[in-house]
């Protein structure tokens, strides 16, 4: 699945962004399938906004976000839902877990959203063990710490099939050791699917062997 940006520009940030150069905003950019993409951006330059545009939950932009050659607007709600179940996965900066569900249920939700789950249920325990969150799986989303929530959100994003994984500061609440573990798991899962990811962060890092670097 190819993602292409044409002259993309967030309307609220327009004036501010025109005064500085960017590799993404107002450019034509194509993200090649299967590539590991790092987008480095200082605060306030529209990191989260970009991720939301790519995932099509914000629409206040000029220019185009094209998926497989068609702009997002050309897909209907049910088609978009299918793509979010099969082609695009996401780790939100604000994580977005259901507080009324346990950690395991939050992950399962994405696993069983499709009629035929990509992974068996045991995979959740395996991934939780790798990220040191096995002990919180049965706790409700409400009682988890930020670091735990972040790892649950990462696992949730990895139990579904995808060709692209979008991540918005996915390690912001994790210590170095847990970051390494999470990054290794993400890299493994991407490779297993021949999938690529787009990761936004504030700084440079060596968590992944990135193919492309952009400055927002």
């Amino acid at each position, binding site marked *: 699945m190819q993602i292409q940006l044409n002259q993309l520009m967030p309307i609220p940030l327009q004036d501010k962004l025109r005064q500085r150069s960017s590799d993404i905003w107002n450019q034509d950019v194509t993200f090649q399938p299967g590539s590991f993409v790092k987008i480095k951006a200082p605060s306030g330059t529209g990191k989260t906004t970009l991720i939301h545009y790519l995932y099509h939950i914000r629409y206040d932009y000029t220019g185009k976000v094209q998926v497989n050659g068609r702009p997002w607007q050309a897909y209907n*709600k049910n088609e978009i839902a299918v793509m979010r179940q099969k082609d695009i996965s996401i780790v939100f900066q604000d994580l977005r877990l259901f507080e009324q569900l346990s950690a395991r249920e939050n992950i399962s939700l994405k696993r069983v959203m499709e*009629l035929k789950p990509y992974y068996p249920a045991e995979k959740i325990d395996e991934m939780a063990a790798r990220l040191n969150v096995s002990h919180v799986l049965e706790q409700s989303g409400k009682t988890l710490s930020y670091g735990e929530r972040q790892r649950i959100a990462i696992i949730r994003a990895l139990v579904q099939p995808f060709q692209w994984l979008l991540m918005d500061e996915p390690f912001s609440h994790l210590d170095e050791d847990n970051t390494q573990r999470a990054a290794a798991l993400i890299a493994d899962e991407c490779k297993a699917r021949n999938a690529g990811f787009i990761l936004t962060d504030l700084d440079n890092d060596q968590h992944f062997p990135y193919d492309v670097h952009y400055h927002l």
Partner: protein
Amino acid sequence: MRPFFELLKKIIQTGVGKTRFLMAAVGLGIAMLLILIAIQAHSNFSQLLYSSKNQNETADFLVINKTITNAMMGQSSKSIFTREEIANIRKQPFVQSFGLVTSSQYKVVVQAPGDLHFATDMFFEAVPDSFLDVKGQDWKWSEGDRTIPIILPNDFLNLYNFGFSLSQDLPQISQETVKALPLQVNISNNQVSDQYMGHIVGFSDRISSFLVPASFMSWANEKYGITTAAGTSRVIIKTPDPSNPELVKFLQDNGYTTNQDKLKFSKTRLIVQTIVSVVGFFGLILLFFALLVFSMFIQLVIASCKREIQLLVILGTAPKQLQRYLLRQFVPLYIVIGILSLLLVTGLQYWAAGELAQHEMQVSTWPGVPVFAGIALVLGLVYIVNLLTVRKYVNNI
């Protein structure tokens, strides 16, 4: 249930306003019951009227004539049906078959034989044979026969036997005797007079007139007719249902009249129909309100889980999946309601059939096809309204 729906159950709380929902469900049940009862009562009534098991109440013959009013007296032409009027009667939906009553255009005098000293002026009428309730081998006449078969109204003999003969100290006569009496029939016009033998072949309950075969009537009218084609002032119809309010209304509207006794059932039927309609109408009103409450309930559920539903959609839940899940929360209850109402109606029908059977009125023991169709229709309507509501509010999120 799919594991995904089990998770949805924890996220989308359908518990809000549960009492309201249950009350709407009870309302739907009552509405369904009223509608089904109306349908079943209607088909029971039709069965009582039309089914072969209840033959006594069905098809009947009516002799129709214009009402003689004071204004018409002395003008016999005003009581005659015009060609258009006849065509109009003939084409009414309740007229199964139609015949003209032909009257004689000559003078008839009937004499009893021997020393009975009985002679009377009379008239003859004829109807097509298919309208007769008395048929026999003797009921035929062909040119050259000197014997005319005659059918008398049963009432006529009764009037004589129980009215006239008792007061005049005359002997009562049995039907057999009358049939055995050879009558002398004088037919005349102003020029000729001929004698024939009359032979009573039967007594009619259906037509109050002195009937001769149609073949004789047309021959005799031709031969002895004084006036040329006097026209028809009485017609006879066969109708599947003399209580049909349409028939009664038609007669009233056109100033026609018939044996009122045969129409008396009509009023009862009108009352029953009205009651059934009112019941059905209340059922429909109730159904409407039940649908309204269901729609509001669905709206409430979706509105109260708006954030959760938004997140589900963001995570990739298809609107279709949400619709299916939400409908699955409500539809089973509707089906249960449908089954319960069906059981109740079946019970009622079983009981009603038993009660009616004691009065020799046969209706089927089980609810008929219309009831099932009614259930399907109501459930279908409820489902569609639910589906549209769910779709509307899910898509608006």
